[in-house]
Protein backbone atom coordinates (compact mmCIF):
# COMPACT_ATOMS: atom_id res chain seq x y z
CA UNK A 1 0.00 0.00 0.00
CA UNK A 2 1.71 3.10 -1.19
CA UNK A 3 0.29 6.54 -1.18
CA UNK A 4 2.19 9.00 -3.19
CA UNK A 5 4.10 11.63 -1.28
CA UNK A 6 2.37 14.35 -3.21
CA UNK A 7 -1.01 13.13 -2.04
CA UNK A 8 0.12 13.08 1.58
CA UNK A 9 1.57 16.57 1.41
CA UNK A 10 -1.55 17.78 -0.34
CA UNK A 11 -3.71 16.26 2.38
CA UNK A 12 -1.59 17.92 5.03
CA UNK A 13 -1.82 21.31 3.33
CA UNK A 14 -5.53 20.89 2.85
CA UNK A 15 -5.98 20.20 6.54
CA UNK A 16 -3.85 23.20 7.40
CA UNK A 17 -5.98 25.47 5.24
CA UNK A 18 -9.14 24.02 6.77
CA UNK A 19 -7.85 24.66 10.28
CA UNK A 20 -6.83 28.22 9.44
CA UNK A 21 -10.16 28.99 7.82
CA UNK A 22 -12.17 27.54 10.71
CA UNK A 23 -10.00 29.24 13.32
CA UNK A 24 -10.22 32.61 11.62
CA UNK A 25 -13.97 32.32 11.17
CA UNK A 26 -14.30 32.11 14.97
CA UNK A 27 -13.43 35.80 15.02
CA UNK A 28 -16.41 36.66 12.83
CA UNK A 29 -19.28 36.28 15.32
CA UNK A 30 -17.62 38.52 17.90
CA UNK A 31 -16.84 41.12 15.26
CA UNK A 32 -20.38 40.90 13.91
CA UNK A 33 -21.88 41.35 17.37
CA UNK A 34 -19.54 44.22 18.21
CA UNK A 35 -20.15 46.07 14.97
CA UNK A 36 -23.89 45.53 15.05
CA UNK A 37 -24.26 46.68 18.63
CA UNK A 38 -22.03 49.71 18.06
CA UNK A 39 -24.00 50.59 14.94
CA UNK A 40 -27.37 50.28 16.69
CA UNK A 41 -26.33 51.64 20.05
CA UNK A 42 -24.11 54.61 19.32
CA UNK A 43 -26.94 56.77 17.98
CA UNK A 44 -29.06 56.18 21.06
CA UNK A 45 -26.54 57.26 23.62
CA UNK A 46 -26.66 60.89 24.64
CA UNK A 47 -26.85 62.88 27.83
CA UNK A 48 -30.59 62.36 28.26
CA UNK A 49 -30.14 58.64 27.78
CA UNK A 50 -27.68 58.50 30.65
CA UNK A 51 -29.52 60.75 33.09
CA UNK A 52 -33.23 60.04 32.57
CA UNK A 53 -35.35 57.16 33.65
CA UNK A 54 -37.43 55.33 31.03
CA UNK A 55 -40.59 57.05 29.85
CA UNK A 56 -43.87 55.22 29.22
CA UNK A 57 -44.35 53.65 25.80
CA UNK A 58 -45.24 56.23 23.18
CA UNK A 59 -43.25 59.10 24.62
CA UNK A 60 -39.98 59.91 22.95
CA UNK A 61 -36.85 60.11 25.02
CA UNK A 62 -36.16 58.51 28.31
CA UNK A 63 -33.01 56.82 29.45
CA UNK A 64 -31.57 54.15 31.62
CA UNK A 65 -30.20 56.11 34.57
CA UNK A 66 -31.97 53.79 36.99
CA UNK A 67 -30.35 50.75 35.42
CA UNK A 68 -26.88 52.29 35.46
CA UNK A 69 -27.17 53.25 39.12
CA UNK A 70 -28.75 49.91 39.98
CA UNK A 71 -26.12 47.85 38.19
CA UNK A 72 -23.40 49.83 39.91
CA UNK A 73 -24.91 49.32 43.37
CA UNK A 74 -25.73 45.63 42.91
CA UNK A 75 -22.34 44.71 41.49
CA UNK A 76 -20.59 46.95 44.03
CA UNK A 77 -22.25 45.21 46.95
CA UNK A 78 -21.52 41.83 45.40
CA UNK A 79 -17.84 42.75 45.12
CA UNK A 80 -17.74 43.94 48.73
CA UNK A 81 -19.16 40.60 49.85
CA UNK A 82 -17.17 38.34 47.57
CA UNK A 83 -13.68 39.86 47.77
CA UNK A 84 -12.84 39.23 51.45
CA UNK A 85 -14.28 35.72 51.43
CA UNK A 86 -12.78 34.86 48.09
CA UNK A 87 -9.29 36.18 48.83
CA UNK A 88 -9.15 34.50 52.26
CA UNK A 89 -10.32 31.22 50.79
CA UNK A 90 -7.73 31.56 48.03
CA UNK A 91 -5.04 32.09 50.67
CA UNK A 92 -6.24 29.00 52.51
CA UNK A 93 -6.12 26.87 49.38
CA UNK A 94 -2.66 28.08 48.41
CA UNK A 95 -1.22 27.63 51.93
CA UNK A 96 -2.80 24.26 52.68
CA UNK A 97 -2.90 22.71 49.25
CA UNK A 98 -2.52 19.17 50.58
CA UNK A 99 -5.09 19.13 53.35
CA UNK A 100 -8.31 17.17 53.12
CA UNK A 101 -10.44 20.27 53.57
CA UNK A 102 -8.62 21.98 50.72
CA UNK A 103 -9.52 19.05 48.46
CA UNK A 104 -13.22 19.27 49.30
CA UNK A 105 -13.16 23.02 49.18
CA UNK A 106 -11.65 23.15 45.74
CA UNK A 107 -14.06 20.46 44.54
CA UNK A 108 -16.86 22.66 45.84
CA UNK A 109 -15.44 25.58 43.91
CA UNK A 110 -15.29 23.54 40.71
CA UNK A 111 -18.94 22.66 41.21
CA UNK A 112 -19.84 26.25 42.03
CA UNK A 113 -18.18 27.44 38.86
CA UNK A 114 -20.30 25.11 36.77
CA UNK A 115 -23.64 25.74 38.47
CA UNK A 116 -26.01 27.35 35.98
CA UNK A 117 -26.70 30.94 36.94
CA UNK A 118 -30.43 30.35 36.96
CA UNK A 119 -30.01 27.78 39.75
CA UNK A 120 -28.13 30.35 41.82
CA UNK A 121 -31.08 32.65 41.22
CA UNK A 122 -33.56 30.05 42.53
CA UNK A 123 -31.46 29.40 45.60
CA UNK A 124 -31.01 33.09 46.36
CA UNK A 125 -34.76 33.48 46.02
CA UNK A 126 -35.37 30.93 48.74
CA UNK A 127 -32.61 32.20 50.99
CA UNK A 128 -33.18 35.91 50.78
CA UNK A 129 -36.33 36.89 48.92
CA UNK A 130 -38.97 34.61 50.40
CA UNK A 131 -37.95 34.90 54.08
CA UNK A 132 -37.72 38.69 53.89
CA UNK A 133 -40.93 39.08 51.98
CA UNK A 134 -39.99 40.72 48.72
CA UNK A 135 -37.52 41.18 45.91
CA UNK A 136 -34.50 43.16 46.97
CA UNK A 137 -31.29 44.47 45.48
CA UNK A 138 -29.22 42.97 48.27
CA UNK A 139 -30.44 39.45 47.44
CA UNK A 140 -29.29 40.05 43.88
CA UNK A 141 -25.92 41.17 45.19
CA UNK A 142 -25.52 38.00 47.21
CA UNK A 143 -26.49 35.83 44.24
CA UNK A 144 -23.86 37.60 42.15
CA UNK A 145 -21.31 37.32 44.97
CA UNK A 146 -21.76 33.54 44.95
CA UNK A 147 -21.01 33.57 41.24
CA UNK A 148 -17.93 35.74 41.75
CA UNK A 149 -16.39 33.52 44.42
CA UNK A 150 -14.92 30.77 42.20
CA UNK A 151 -13.19 33.27 39.91
CA UNK A 152 -11.67 35.26 42.77
CA UNK A 153 -10.59 32.20 44.74
CA UNK A 154 -9.01 30.48 41.75
CA UNK A 155 -7.11 33.58 40.67
CA UNK A 156 -5.87 34.30 44.19
CA UNK A 157 -4.83 30.69 44.69
CA UNK A 158 -2.99 30.42 41.39
CA UNK A 159 -1.21 33.75 41.87
CA UNK A 160 -0.07 33.00 45.41
CA UNK A 161 1.07 29.50 44.48
CA UNK A 162 3.36 31.01 41.89
CA UNK A 163 5.25 33.15 44.39
CA UNK A 164 8.57 31.55 45.33
CA UNK A 165 8.67 29.66 48.64
CA UNK A 166 11.86 31.52 49.57
CA UNK A 167 9.79 34.67 50.02
CA UNK A 168 7.59 32.99 52.60
CA UNK A 169 10.55 31.30 54.28
CA UNK A 170 12.57 34.51 54.47
CA UNK A 171 9.69 36.32 56.12
CA UNK A 172 9.11 33.49 58.60
CA UNK A 173 12.82 33.35 59.38
CA UNK A 174 12.68 36.97 60.46
CA UNK A 175 10.25 35.90 63.12
CA UNK A 176 7.14 37.33 61.61
CA UNK A 177 3.93 35.68 62.71
CA UNK A 178 2.01 33.77 60.02
CA UNK A 179 -0.76 36.29 59.49
CA UNK A 180 1.72 39.10 58.98
CA UNK A 181 3.75 37.04 56.53
CA UNK A 182 0.58 36.52 54.52
CA UNK A 183 -0.89 39.99 54.78
CA UNK A 184 2.30 42.06 54.60
CA UNK A 185 4.48 39.99 52.28
CA UNK A 186 2.62 37.37 50.29
CA UNK A 187 -0.57 39.23 49.45
CA UNK A 188 1.15 42.49 48.41
CA UNK A 189 3.46 40.48 46.15
CA UNK A 190 0.53 38.80 44.46
CA UNK A 191 -1.70 41.84 44.53
CA UNK A 192 -1.80 42.39 40.78
CA UNK A 193 -2.97 38.84 40.19
CA UNK A 194 -5.58 39.08 42.91
CA UNK A 195 -6.90 42.39 41.60
CA UNK A 196 -7.11 41.12 38.05
CA UNK A 197 -9.05 38.15 39.39
CA UNK A 198 -11.48 40.52 41.06
CA UNK A 199 -11.89 42.58 37.88
CA UNK A 200 -12.48 39.40 35.90
CA UNK A 201 -15.12 38.34 38.39
CA UNK A 202 -16.81 41.74 38.15
CA UNK A 203 -16.80 41.48 34.38
CA UNK A 204 -18.31 38.02 34.60
CA UNK A 205 -21.23 38.98 36.80
CA UNK A 206 -21.88 42.46 35.43
CA UNK A 207 -23.73 40.91 32.50
CA UNK A 208 -25.49 38.16 34.42
CA UNK A 209 -29.24 38.33 34.07
CA UNK A 210 -30.55 34.99 35.23
CA UNK A 211 -29.72 35.32 38.95
CA UNK A 212 -31.28 38.79 39.04
CA UNK A 213 -34.61 37.73 37.54
CA UNK A 214 -35.89 36.40 40.86
CA UNK A 215 -33.86 38.57 43.21
CA UNK A 216 -33.32 42.20 42.17
CA UNK A 217 -36.31 41.78 39.83
CA UNK A 218 -36.10 45.17 38.15
CA UNK A 219 -37.75 48.48 38.82
CA UNK A 220 -38.93 51.10 36.33
CA UNK A 221 -37.99 53.92 38.70
CA UNK A 222 -34.74 55.12 40.16
CA UNK A 223 -34.14 53.36 43.46
CA UNK A 224 -31.07 53.22 45.64
CA UNK A 225 -32.55 51.28 48.54
CA UNK A 226 -30.85 47.90 48.92
CA UNK A 227 -33.98 46.40 50.45
CA UNK A 228 -36.19 47.20 47.46
CA UNK A 229 -36.30 45.89 43.89
CA UNK A 230 -33.70 47.55 41.71
CA UNK A 231 -33.14 47.85 38.00
CA UNK A 232 -29.91 46.73 36.38
CA UNK A 233 -28.46 46.86 32.87
CA UNK A 234 -28.86 43.17 31.94
CA UNK A 235 -32.45 43.17 33.22
CA UNK A 236 -33.25 46.29 31.20
CA UNK A 237 -31.85 44.66 28.07
CA UNK A 238 -33.79 41.45 28.65
CA UNK A 239 -37.09 43.12 29.43
CA UNK A 240 -36.95 45.71 26.67
CA UNK A 241 -35.48 43.43 24.02
CA UNK A 242 -38.35 40.98 24.41
CA UNK A 243 -40.95 43.76 24.40
CA UNK A 244 -42.80 44.62 21.17
CA UNK A 245 -42.13 48.39 21.29
CA UNK A 246 -39.51 50.08 19.15
CA UNK A 247 -38.80 52.83 21.69
CA UNK A 248 -37.89 50.18 24.21
CA UNK A 249 -35.73 48.35 21.67
CA UNK A 250 -33.79 51.58 21.23
CA UNK A 251 -33.20 51.82 24.96
CA UNK A 252 -32.07 48.20 25.00
CA UNK A 253 -29.58 48.81 22.16
CA UNK A 254 -28.04 51.72 24.02
CA UNK A 255 -27.91 49.70 27.23
CA UNK A 256 -26.33 46.77 25.35
CA UNK A 257 -23.60 48.98 24.00
CA UNK A 258 -22.79 50.37 27.43
CA UNK A 259 -22.81 46.91 29.02
CA UNK A 260 -20.77 45.28 26.27
CA UNK A 261 -18.23 48.09 26.19
CA UNK A 262 -17.70 48.03 29.94
CA UNK A 263 -17.47 44.24 30.15
CA UNK A 264 -14.99 44.00 27.27
CA UNK A 265 -12.99 46.92 28.68
CA UNK A 266 -12.68 45.17 32.05
CA UNK A 267 -11.54 42.00 30.31
CA UNK A 268 -8.98 43.83 28.22
CA UNK A 269 -7.66 45.64 31.30
CA UNK A 270 -7.04 42.32 33.03
CA UNK A 271 -5.36 40.92 29.93
CA UNK A 272 -2.99 43.86 29.65
CA UNK A 273 -2.24 44.01 33.35
CA UNK A 274 -1.52 40.29 33.61
CA UNK A 275 0.77 40.45 30.64
CA UNK A 276 2.63 43.34 32.20
CA UNK A 277 3.10 41.53 35.50
CA UNK A 278 3.81 38.22 33.81
CA UNK A 279 1.24 36.45 35.95
CA UNK A 280 -0.20 33.60 33.95
CA UNK A 281 -3.81 33.01 34.79
Amino acid at each position, binding site marked *: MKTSIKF*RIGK*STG*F*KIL*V*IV*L*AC*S*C*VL*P*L*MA*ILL*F*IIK*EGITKINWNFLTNIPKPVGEIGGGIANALVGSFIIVGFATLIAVPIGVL*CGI*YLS*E*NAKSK*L*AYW*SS*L*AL*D*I*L*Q*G*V*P*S*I*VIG*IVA*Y*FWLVKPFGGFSAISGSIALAIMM*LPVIVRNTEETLKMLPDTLREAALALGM*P*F*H*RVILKVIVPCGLSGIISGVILAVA*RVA*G*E*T*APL*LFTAFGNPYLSVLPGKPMQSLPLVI*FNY*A*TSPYNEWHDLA*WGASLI*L*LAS*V*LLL*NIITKISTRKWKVQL
Partner: protein
Amino acid sequence: MSNTISPNVITRSNDSLRVITSLQVPTVEKDKLSYKRSQRHIRTERMFRNTLVIMGILMVLLVLAILVTLCVQSVPSIKSLGLSYLWGRTWDPVQDIYGAYPFLIGTLITSFLALIISIPFSFAVAIFLGEYYPKGWFANFIKNTVELIAAVPSVIYGFWGLAVMVPAVREIEMQLGYQPLGVGIFSASLILSIMIIPYAASLGRSMVQMVPSNLKEGAYSLGATKWEVIRSVIFPYTKSGLFAGILLSLGRALGETMAVTMVIGNTSLLPKNIFAPGNTMASVIANEFTEADKPVYLSALIELGLVLFLVTVVINVVGKKVISRFTK
Protein backbone atom coordinates in the same frame (compact mmCIF):
# COMPACT_ATOMS: atom_id res chain seq x y z
CA MET B 1 19.55 39.51 79.17
CA SER B 2 22.94 38.04 78.56
CA ASN B 3 24.38 40.86 80.66
CA THR B 4 22.69 39.56 83.77
CA ILE B 5 24.25 36.14 83.50
CA SER B 6 26.65 35.54 86.36
CA PRO B 7 30.20 34.24 85.76
CA ASN B 8 29.25 30.70 86.62
CA VAL B 9 27.22 29.98 83.52
CA ILE B 10 28.29 27.27 81.14
CA THR B 11 30.97 28.89 79.10
CA ARG B 12 33.54 27.59 76.75
CA SER B 13 36.13 30.21 77.45
CA ASN B 14 39.64 28.96 78.13
CA ASP B 15 38.62 25.47 77.13
CA SER B 16 37.08 24.89 80.50
CA LEU B 17 33.55 23.77 81.07
CA ARG B 18 31.96 24.89 84.25
CA VAL B 19 28.75 23.48 85.56
CA ILE B 20 26.31 25.52 87.57
CA THR B 21 23.92 24.12 90.10
CA SER B 22 20.22 24.79 89.92
CA LEU B 23 20.40 27.23 92.80
CA GLN B 24 22.75 29.40 90.93
CA VAL B 25 20.58 29.74 87.84
CA PRO B 26 20.30 33.41 87.03
CA THR B 27 16.85 34.89 87.18
CA VAL B 28 15.67 36.03 83.81
CA GLU B 29 13.55 39.12 83.85
CA LYS B 30 10.70 38.76 81.46
CA ASP B 31 10.45 41.66 79.09
CA LYS B 32 6.79 42.35 79.67
CA LEU B 33 6.16 44.37 76.58
CA SER B 34 7.61 41.95 74.08
CA TYR B 35 6.04 39.04 75.97
CA LYS B 36 2.66 40.67 75.61
CA ARG B 37 3.27 41.39 71.99
CA SER B 38 4.26 37.85 71.16
CA GLN B 39 1.23 36.58 73.05
CA ARG B 40 -0.92 38.86 70.96
CA HIS B 41 0.75 37.66 67.79
CA ILE B 42 0.11 34.06 68.71
CA ARG B 43 -3.53 34.83 69.39
CA THR B 44 -3.98 36.72 66.14
CA GLU B 45 -2.17 34.03 64.25
CA ARG B 46 -4.49 31.38 65.63
CA MET B 47 -7.48 33.55 64.79
CA PHE B 48 -6.22 34.12 61.27
CA ARG B 49 -5.63 30.44 60.66
CA ASN B 50 -9.11 29.66 61.96
CA THR B 51 -10.62 32.29 59.67
CA LEU B 52 -8.91 30.68 56.70
CA VAL B 53 -10.22 27.25 57.70
CA ILE B 54 -13.72 28.69 58.12
CA MET B 55 -13.55 30.14 54.61
CA GLY B 56 -12.55 26.74 53.28
CA ILE B 57 -15.47 25.11 55.10
CA LEU B 58 -17.78 27.88 53.90
CA MET B 59 -17.26 26.88 50.27
CA VAL B 60 -18.23 23.29 50.98
CA LEU B 61 -21.22 24.43 53.04
CA LEU B 62 -22.33 26.76 50.28
CA VAL B 63 -22.54 23.95 47.74
CA LEU B 64 -24.24 21.63 50.23
CA ALA B 65 -26.70 24.37 51.13
CA ILE B 66 -27.55 24.89 47.46
CA LEU B 67 -28.15 21.17 47.07
CA VAL B 68 -30.24 20.92 50.24
CA THR B 69 -32.32 23.98 49.34
CA LEU B 70 -33.11 22.58 45.90
CA CYS B 71 -33.94 19.15 47.32
CA VAL B 72 -36.16 20.49 50.10
CA GLN B 73 -38.03 22.83 47.79
CA SER B 74 -38.67 20.16 45.18
CA VAL B 75 -40.11 17.70 47.72
CA PRO B 76 -43.76 18.71 47.05
CA SER B 77 -43.42 17.97 43.37
CA ILE B 78 -41.54 14.71 43.91
CA LYS B 79 -44.25 13.64 46.35
CA SER B 80 -47.24 14.50 44.21
CA LEU B 81 -45.85 13.82 40.75
CA GLY B 82 -43.32 11.10 41.41
CA LEU B 83 -40.77 9.93 38.92
CA SER B 84 -43.21 9.96 36.03
CA TYR B 85 -42.78 13.71 36.11
CA LEU B 86 -39.65 13.40 34.05
CA TRP B 87 -41.39 11.32 31.37
CA GLY B 88 -44.67 13.21 31.24
CA ARG B 89 -45.25 14.65 27.79
CA THR B 90 -47.62 17.48 28.61
CA TRP B 91 -46.89 20.56 30.62
CA ASP B 92 -50.10 22.37 31.44
CA PRO B 93 -50.00 24.24 34.75
CA VAL B 94 -53.60 25.44 34.32
CA GLN B 95 -54.83 21.84 34.35
CA ASP B 96 -52.24 20.85 36.96
CA ILE B 97 -50.48 18.51 34.56
CA TYR B 98 -46.74 18.62 34.81
CA GLY B 99 -44.48 16.67 32.52
CA ALA B 100 -40.89 17.73 31.97
CA TYR B 101 -40.17 15.58 28.93
CA PRO B 102 -40.45 18.45 26.38
CA PHE B 103 -37.91 20.48 28.34
CA LEU B 104 -35.50 17.58 28.79
CA ILE B 105 -35.67 16.92 25.06
CA GLY B 106 -35.35 20.62 24.27
CA THR B 107 -32.29 20.94 26.47
CA LEU B 108 -30.62 17.83 25.06
CA ILE B 109 -31.27 18.74 21.42
CA THR B 110 -30.10 22.35 21.72
CA SER B 111 -26.99 21.40 23.69
CA PHE B 112 -25.87 18.55 21.46
CA LEU B 113 -26.65 20.41 18.26
CA ALA B 114 -24.64 23.35 19.59
CA LEU B 115 -21.79 21.01 20.49
CA ILE B 116 -21.77 19.44 17.03
CA ILE B 117 -21.66 22.85 15.39
CA SER B 118 -19.01 24.28 17.70
CA ILE B 119 -16.59 21.34 17.97
CA PRO B 120 -14.94 21.76 14.55
CA PHE B 121 -14.38 25.43 15.26
CA SER B 122 -13.03 25.03 18.75
CA PHE B 123 -10.75 22.15 17.75
CA ALA B 124 -9.52 24.19 14.80
CA VAL B 125 -8.67 27.04 17.15
CA ALA B 126 -6.96 24.61 19.53
CA ILE B 127 -4.82 23.10 16.77
CA PHE B 128 -4.18 26.46 15.13
CA LEU B 129 -2.90 28.02 18.36
CA GLY B 130 -1.33 24.91 19.83
CA GLU B 131 0.45 23.52 16.81
CA TYR B 132 0.52 25.71 13.72
CA TYR B 133 0.99 29.22 15.08
CA PRO B 134 1.70 29.22 18.80
CA LYS B 135 3.28 32.70 18.69
CA GLY B 136 2.98 35.94 16.82
CA TRP B 137 0.59 38.85 16.79
CA PHE B 138 -2.01 37.09 14.67
CA ALA B 139 -2.13 34.09 17.00
CA ASN B 140 -2.45 36.48 19.92
CA PHE B 141 -5.27 38.25 18.17
CA ILE B 142 -7.16 35.01 17.57
CA LYS B 143 -6.53 33.81 21.10
CA ASN B 144 -7.73 37.01 22.73
CA THR B 145 -10.74 37.30 20.46
CA VAL B 146 -11.84 33.75 21.16
CA GLU B 147 -11.44 34.34 24.88
CA LEU B 148 -13.50 37.50 24.62
CA ILE B 149 -16.34 35.46 23.11
CA ALA B 150 -16.76 33.99 26.58
CA ALA B 151 -16.86 37.44 28.12
CA VAL B 152 -19.83 38.80 26.19
CA PRO B 153 -22.91 38.70 28.45
CA SER B 154 -25.44 36.09 27.39
CA VAL B 155 -28.29 38.58 27.31
CA ILE B 156 -26.43 40.46 24.57
CA TYR B 157 -26.07 37.25 22.58
CA GLY B 158 -29.79 36.80 22.98
CA PHE B 159 -30.60 40.31 21.81
CA TRP B 160 -28.24 40.06 18.86
CA GLY B 161 -29.68 36.67 18.00
CA LEU B 162 -33.17 38.09 18.12
CA ALA B 163 -32.26 40.97 15.82
CA VAL B 164 -29.86 39.32 13.37
CA MET B 165 -29.93 35.56 13.59
CA VAL B 166 -33.66 34.99 13.87
CA PRO B 167 -34.47 36.79 10.57
CA ALA B 168 -31.68 34.83 8.89
CA VAL B 169 -33.00 31.54 10.21
CA ARG B 170 -36.47 32.58 9.05
CA GLU B 171 -35.10 32.92 5.52
CA ILE B 172 -33.60 29.45 5.71
CA GLU B 173 -36.87 28.05 6.99
CA MET B 174 -38.75 29.63 4.10
CA GLN B 175 -36.31 28.06 1.65
CA LEU B 176 -36.70 24.67 3.27
CA GLY B 177 -40.47 24.90 3.55
CA TYR B 178 -40.82 24.86 7.31
CA GLN B 179 -43.05 27.21 9.23
CA PRO B 180 -41.06 30.46 9.10
CA LEU B 181 -40.98 31.44 12.77
CA GLY B 182 -37.31 32.21 13.09
CA VAL B 183 -37.28 31.53 16.79
CA GLY B 184 -36.81 27.91 17.71
CA ILE B 185 -34.44 25.15 18.64
CA PHE B 186 -32.17 25.73 15.67
CA SER B 187 -31.66 29.44 16.45
CA ALA B 188 -30.97 28.59 20.08
CA SER B 189 -28.39 25.99 19.04
CA LEU B 190 -26.63 28.44 16.73
CA ILE B 191 -26.34 31.07 19.46
CA LEU B 192 -25.20 28.45 21.96
CA SER B 193 -22.59 27.10 19.57
CA ILE B 194 -20.97 30.53 19.34
CA MET B 195 -21.04 30.95 23.08
CA ILE B 196 -19.35 27.65 23.92
CA ILE B 197 -16.49 27.82 21.40
CA PRO B 198 -13.97 29.32 23.88
CA TYR B 199 -14.32 26.61 26.52
CA ALA B 200 -13.20 23.67 24.43
CA ALA B 201 -10.80 25.85 22.43
CA SER B 202 -8.72 27.24 25.29
CA LEU B 203 -8.55 23.90 27.08
CA GLY B 204 -7.68 22.13 23.84
CA ARG B 205 -4.95 24.64 23.08
CA SER B 206 -3.17 24.06 26.38
CA MET B 207 -3.52 20.30 25.90
CA VAL B 208 -2.08 20.42 22.38
CA GLN B 209 0.82 22.53 23.61
CA MET B 210 1.57 19.96 26.29
CA VAL B 211 2.33 17.20 23.80
CA PRO B 212 6.04 16.39 24.30
CA SER B 213 8.04 17.67 21.36
CA ASN B 214 10.20 14.55 21.15
CA LEU B 215 7.12 12.51 20.25
CA LYS B 216 6.31 14.90 17.43
CA GLU B 217 9.93 15.10 16.31
CA GLY B 218 10.11 11.33 16.26
CA ALA B 219 7.14 11.19 13.93
CA TYR B 220 8.54 13.93 11.71
CA SER B 221 11.87 12.14 11.47
CA LEU B 222 10.03 9.04 10.24
CA GLY B 223 8.70 11.16 7.41
CA ALA B 224 5.23 11.97 8.67
CA THR B 225 3.48 15.05 7.34
CA LYS B 226 1.95 17.63 9.64
CA TRP B 227 -1.52 16.12 9.25
CA GLU B 228 -0.22 12.66 10.04
CA VAL B 229 1.49 13.98 13.16
CA ILE B 230 -1.72 15.66 14.24
CA ARG B 231 -3.79 12.57 13.56
CA SER B 232 -1.51 9.89 14.97
CA VAL B 233 0.50 11.69 17.66
CA ILE B 234 -1.26 14.80 18.90
CA PHE B 235 -4.82 13.51 18.74
CA PRO B 236 -4.27 10.23 20.63
CA TYR B 237 -2.14 12.04 23.21
CA THR B 238 -4.69 14.78 23.88
CA LYS B 239 -7.81 12.65 23.50
CA SER B 240 -8.84 12.75 27.14
CA GLY B 241 -8.12 16.48 27.37
CA LEU B 242 -10.22 17.22 24.31
CA PHE B 243 -12.96 15.07 25.80
CA ALA B 244 -12.83 17.15 28.98
CA GLY B 245 -13.09 20.31 26.90
CA ILE B 246 -16.21 18.97 25.20
CA LEU B 247 -17.69 18.06 28.58
CA LEU B 248 -17.11 21.55 29.98
CA SER B 249 -18.66 23.07 26.87
CA LEU B 250 -21.64 20.78 27.29
CA GLY B 251 -22.00 21.82 30.92
CA ARG B 252 -22.02 25.43 29.81
CA ALA B 253 -24.57 24.78 27.07
CA LEU B 254 -26.96 22.88 29.35
CA GLY B 255 -27.17 25.65 31.90
CA GLU B 256 -27.20 28.63 29.57
CA THR B 257 -30.36 30.58 30.21
CA MET B 258 -30.84 34.04 28.86
CA ALA B 259 -29.72 33.78 25.25
CA VAL B 260 -31.67 30.55 24.83
CA THR B 261 -34.77 31.97 26.48
CA MET B 262 -34.79 34.89 24.08
CA VAL B 263 -34.55 32.92 20.84
CA ILE B 264 -36.06 29.49 21.49
CA GLY B 265 -39.70 30.54 21.20
CA ASN B 266 -40.90 29.32 24.59
CA THR B 267 -43.64 26.80 24.05
CA SER B 268 -44.23 23.83 26.25
CA LEU B 269 -45.11 21.58 23.34
CA LEU B 270 -42.86 18.75 22.32
CA PRO B 271 -40.71 20.05 19.42
CA LYS B 272 -41.50 18.24 16.17
CA ASN B 273 -38.33 19.17 14.26
CA ILE B 274 -35.21 21.22 14.90
CA PHE B 275 -36.80 24.38 13.52
CA ALA B 276 -39.79 24.17 15.85
CA PRO B 277 -40.01 26.39 18.91
CA GLY B 278 -39.45 24.72 22.23
CA ASN B 279 -38.13 25.28 25.71
CA THR B 280 -35.13 24.16 27.71
CA MET B 281 -35.07 23.46 31.43
CA ALA B 282 -33.28 26.73 32.15
CA SER B 283 -35.53 28.80 29.93
CA VAL B 284 -38.75 27.41 31.37
CA ILE B 285 -37.51 28.27 34.85
CA ALA B 286 -36.61 31.79 33.74
CA ASN B 287 -39.99 32.30 32.11
CA GLU B 288 -42.38 30.78 34.57
CA PHE B 289 -40.72 30.97 37.98
CA THR B 290 -42.17 34.33 38.99
CA GLU B 291 -45.58 33.39 37.58
CA ALA B 292 -45.87 30.08 39.36
CA ASP B 293 -48.79 30.57 41.71
CA LYS B 294 -49.34 27.01 42.93
CA PRO B 295 -46.89 25.27 45.28
CA VAL B 296 -46.69 22.19 43.07
CA TYR B 297 -46.07 24.32 39.99
CA LEU B 298 -43.23 26.19 41.69
CA SER B 299 -41.83 23.01 43.09
CA ALA B 300 -41.95 21.33 39.68
CA LEU B 301 -39.83 24.17 38.30
CA ILE B 302 -37.38 23.81 41.16
CA GLU B 303 -37.13 20.10 40.47
CA LEU B 304 -35.99 21.04 36.97
CA GLY B 305 -33.39 23.26 38.61
CA LEU B 306 -32.31 20.35 40.77
CA VAL B 307 -31.92 18.09 37.73
CA LEU B 308 -29.94 20.82 35.99
CA PHE B 309 -27.73 21.28 39.06
CA LEU B 310 -27.01 17.56 39.44
CA VAL B 311 -26.24 17.10 35.75
CA THR B 312 -23.84 20.05 35.64
CA VAL B 313 -22.18 18.90 38.87
CA VAL B 314 -21.49 15.48 37.38
CA ILE B 315 -20.26 16.96 34.11
CA ASN B 316 -17.97 19.47 35.79
CA VAL B 317 -16.52 17.05 38.32
CA VAL B 318 -15.79 14.44 35.66
CA GLY B 319 -14.33 17.12 33.37
CA LYS B 320 -12.06 18.52 36.07
CA LYS B 321 -10.95 15.00 37.08
CA VAL B 322 -9.95 14.22 33.51
CA ILE B 323 -8.04 17.50 33.24
CA SER B 324 -6.18 17.04 36.50
CA ARG B 325 -5.21 13.49 35.59
CA PHE B 326 -3.98 14.75 32.24
CA THR B 327 -1.90 17.59 33.64
CA LYS B 328 -0.27 15.33 36.22
